């Protein structure tokens, strides 16, 4: 079933892609092929392989149960929040929180996870910023 969904979505994506390709505005300078043809070829390749998957699906993969999927979703949300928090809260604080969360969800007891988060954040800050001189996000406190 998963493969049929993949094939179906792929087909829709291919149709959308080809439709978008036909909408590309041509420039007044152009080569014999133009900017549309190659994307259309790709779209056709994508559509054909989607059809093949749709009609000859593989065996079903093992999807995790719902609670795990929810957890993956939550982690994605944390990562997105992390990306937004970086410029405002600074590197060390946001990284400590995100790393602690990840470590906790991967099975570390809460207190140890917080310690792990702080150690990871400071470790990366020391190695990459202080030693290697990489520019990291600066927060209101400068780190």
């Amino acid at each position: 079933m998963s493969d049929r969904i993949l094939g179906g979505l792929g087909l829709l994506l291919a149709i959308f892609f080809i439709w978008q390709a036909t909408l590309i505005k041509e420039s007044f300078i152009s080569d014999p092929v133009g900017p549309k043809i190659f994307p259309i070829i790709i779209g056709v390749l994508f559509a054909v392989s989607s059809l093949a998957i749709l009609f000859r699906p593989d065996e079903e993969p093992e999807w995790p149960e719902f609670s795990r999927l929810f957890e993956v979703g939550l982690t994605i949300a944390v990562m997105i929040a992390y990306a937004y928090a970086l410029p405002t809260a600074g590197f060390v604080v946001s990284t400590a929180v995100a790393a602690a969360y990840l470590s906790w969800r991967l099975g570390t007891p809460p207190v140890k996870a917080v310690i792990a988060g702080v150690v990871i954040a400071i470790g990366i800050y020391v190695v990459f910023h202080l030693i290697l001189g990489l520019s990291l996000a600066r927060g209101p406190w400068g780190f």
Partner: protein
Amino acid sequence: MDTLSALANGFSIALTFQNLGLALIGCFLGTIIGALPGLGPSNGVAILIPLAFSLGLPATPALILLTSVYYGAMYGGRISSILLNIPGDEPALMTTLDGYPMAKKGMAGEALALSGIASFVGAFFATWGLVFLAPQLVKVALLFGPAEYFALFALAFATLGGIASRNQAKAALAAGLGLGIAMIGVDGQTGVPRFTFGEVHLYDGIDFLVAIVGLFALSEVFIFLEHRGTAKATGDASGIKLGRLTPPMSMIKQTAPTMARSTVLGFIAGVLPGAGASLGSFIAYSVEKRLVDKHGTFGTGDPRGVAAPEAGNNAAAGGALVPMLALGVPGSGTTAVLLAMLLALNITPGPLLFTNNPDVVWGLIAALFIGNLMLLVMNIPMVSLFVRVLLVPPRYLMPAVAMISFVGIYGISGSTFDLMVMVFFGVLGWVLRKLDVPLVPVILGVLLGNQMEANMRRAMTISDGDWSALFASPLSIGLWLFAFFGFILPIVAGRFFRSKLPRTDSEADPD
């Protein structure tokens, strides 16, 4: 003798304090990355690229660092294979078959030492193969015009999909996805925006480094999250005694022919587009088993069964660098990631690399020789150091990996938008891996898409829009035929061959 003097020149470049230091760091990190289950050569190198890039390393040192990681990972994978029965990375899968039984017999030290020697032999001769074969391939590649290059790119996708994956349709889908992503942004030839939907961030296209780190590194975190608490990737190396770290001479003598054959086979598997180190070790092991396993000892701790896959995968790792450097067409996951490094540094691999930047190529090759020696020392006398690293549980390791991925991408652009794109690719990579869709064609598509289109349009411009020009020269016809059969034959005849490839959890990619 041109080659040898170029190589000597390469040594003078590699033997600087900085480059030696980088090779040492790379070898060390690579061995760790290889040894840790869950981090393989392709995601290890993927994480380090943005870092090397934002640290502002010039081309040669950056390449030396990353290829040392690549070679090191090929060594490191065997450590957890032998001690834990968990392959540290994909190519080391075959090493578990005889390595772990040897360890259980109390010969862990001998197995580690022997596999270290086999790795050295494989990598050493494969690097010589690279020295002599790459310039020959460059001579052929100099005859290529745009039409031939277009066919060559098609060949790379076809063989990658045909030989290396279990489901050709999914490989084709992955290639289409990657190529489609490459189309996003302003068209290089006419300057019109494509698939940007008015979003300014998309005018430059999707940065392939962002895509690679997301697909390879971040998706690994989701895999671990999903498998938390299960047996996958947790092991205990504390109970194993290493024993003596020198294999008896008789064992080396017994395995020498095996190493020789496996090196040759592995190298060939590596050079062929689409077959990486995983296939190299698989072929080496199965051929040896068929050839010398007269008493059915393979699988029960036969030293030859340890030497074969290790010589095979290290030789394949060297071989895979040949098409990447000489043609600009990578044949495996990790070489695709290395290609991304070169492209990020504005260096186009291929025949021109050898004429325009000979110091990059030969400095790199010389560094590989030096790195290989370092690896031999690290992996036999100092192996117990790495055994201790194996005790770091993934629940501490993976958060660090994720955070370093973010640091690397943020270091390049400092933009939240890129981090979002990376998270998107991380999720995409996780879903694709669940569905057994290989990721390497996606990366290859993102990397090569624009060049492929440019070559096609250049060929069309030369022929003034006559499509038959793509199939005009004997060279391009040969490449198209090779591509066609590389894709079709495995579908027809490959059921037999591929069914024997061990099916692993989620990997559809050659490393």
